């Protein structure tokens, strides 16, 4: 069997195992269902009223999609750290299985969780007035882009999870870095409303690129004053989002696999 074929086969088995875990544990239900519903409703109605009503809610949905998808990478962090602490990674590493499979299985099962979350968020979005106004193909592309970005974020999560000294640390480390990244972006307000340096960061933040692409592809317009600031990242949002996702994968897949080979549990 080639390395890749074995990786896919073993990765599939680990994915199956992780998804059984998802089905049987309440934490994951929270991640896939409750948290997305909560985010959509909270942001839509708490901020929505002040910031522009229906049009703001439509603007906001893409931001919440990207934030939720990327927050789901925390489950890769916690999942891997848990497996490490419980000696399950030791067992996997003592088996004649692919070195890629455990990480692959984890990131792929989280992709499945994220897909479910996306479906639920979309339904919630429709309820609060969000609509897909672009073509069917563009909408498919938007969802694919969201999943690709979520997948890339999971690989950053994989490295964090394998490096965290305890599940408690993993839990906070897994989310902490995501707060500034998701808030200093155009997720909730247009980048143009931020002061100088923050604006530059927000404009070049890959989160903004993904969010902007999704808004463009769904045909969701920004409310007054929140239009994307002009410039290369905004003009080439889809390309930039795609490139950032691929660069993240190109960096973090090899780093995580290298870490996995050496990782020692307590």
């Amino acid at each position, binding site marked *: 069997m080639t390395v890749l074929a074995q990786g896919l086969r073993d990765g599939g088995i680990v994915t199956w195992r992780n998804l059984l875990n998802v089905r049987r544990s309440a934490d994951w239900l929270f991640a896939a269902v409750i948290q997305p519903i909560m985010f959509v409703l909270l942001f839509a109605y708490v901020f929505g009223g002040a910031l522009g009503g229906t049009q703001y809610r439509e603007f906001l949905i893409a931001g919440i999609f990207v934030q939720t998808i990327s927050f789901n990478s925390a489950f890769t962090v916690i999942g891997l750290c848990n497996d490490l602490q419980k*000696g399950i990674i030791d*067992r996997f590493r003592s088996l004649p299985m692919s070195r890629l499979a455990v990480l692959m299985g984890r990131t792929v099962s989280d992709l499945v969780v994220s897909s479910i979350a996306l479906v639920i968020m979309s339904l919630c979005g429709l309820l609060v007035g969000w609509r897909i106004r672009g073509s069917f193909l563009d909408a498919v592309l938007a969802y694919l882009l969201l999943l690709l970005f979520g997948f890339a974020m999971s690989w950053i999560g994989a490295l964090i999870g394998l490096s965290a000294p305890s599940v408690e640390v993993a839990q906070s480390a897994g989310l902490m870095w995501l707060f500034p990244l998701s808030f200093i972006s155009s997720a909730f307000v247009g980048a143009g409303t931020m002061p100088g340096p923050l604006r530059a960061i927000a404009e070049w933040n890959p989160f903004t690129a993904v969010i902007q692409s999704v808004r463009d592809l769904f045909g969701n317009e920004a409310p007054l004053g929140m239009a994307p600031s002009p410039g290369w990242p905004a003009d080439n949002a889809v390309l930039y989002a795609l490139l950032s996702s691929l660069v993240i994968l190109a960096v973090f897949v090899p780093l995580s696999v290298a870490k996995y080979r050496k990782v020692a549990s307590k």
Partner: protein
Amino acid sequence: MPTDVAVRAEALVKTFGSTRALDGIDLEIPTGTVLGLLGPNGAGKTTAVRILTTLLRPDSGRAWVAGYDVLAEPNKVRESIGLSGQYAAVDENLTGFENLYMVGRLYGMNKPDARKRADELITRFRLTDAAGRPAKTYSGGMRRRLDLAGALVAEPQVVLLDEPTTGLDPRGRLDTWEVIGELVSDGATVLLTTQYLEEADQLANTILVIDHGRVIASGSADELKSEVGGEKLEIVVADEADLDAAVRVLAEVGAGEPTTDRHSRRVQVVVDGGPKSLIEALRRLDVEGVTVLDVGLHRPTLDDVFLSLTGHVTEDSQ
């Protein structure tokens, strides 16, 4: 490496920071036998197991398992071994059956074979009633059995068990001993680590005593025990005035000089007749009219072995 040797290590060294976890360990396990690696916490037992199972690379030294070099052909080694680590590595949300099925699949079995093997092991490890329940509902002993079963899924030539009974209650321990006993009668080569001389005695053909990453003694359990001085008979008398009579009796029955602790009215002596010596001592004490408050026969522990080999007890009990 000759084919009748299943595991061999030469001069393994591993340091973590300033700690020398392994300081030149050599070992050899003839095929179909059990080697017990006996030592206190931090002696280097787990490090040795991790190197032999390809989880860790040694700083220097070489090792072969089932004929394969652990550094040069780690995947061949992994195909030939089963590992049960220090903590039962079972997925708590999966059922017992699913845990074993998954391991089978990851050893490369196809679905029907993995299913069949999981069923066999469930039966053999007496988990039939619990097979469909998530492992988080299992007792400590059941988890251990499931973990051991996981190590045996691929019928490995060499099985490595790192402290298989640590954290188990006495019943769980006996259960686990039974399973390991069966394993050996099936012809597997086993390396097991333990902190209990009694356990090594029960299960191992040969025992290596290690401390600070070095082998400080090796031999059969009997050889080690005779080095330590066998079992100890201990009595506590009711009346301090009887102590001299008790010392006299134990000196006659025992195999050495009795030691006395006047304060607790306790007399100890090494015996070589086991329960027979105990009965003989009690009979004679009765004849002498000595009232005995407490009596016990103590097998030598790891601490006794350590005390006689190194002159100090294990650091855990200091």
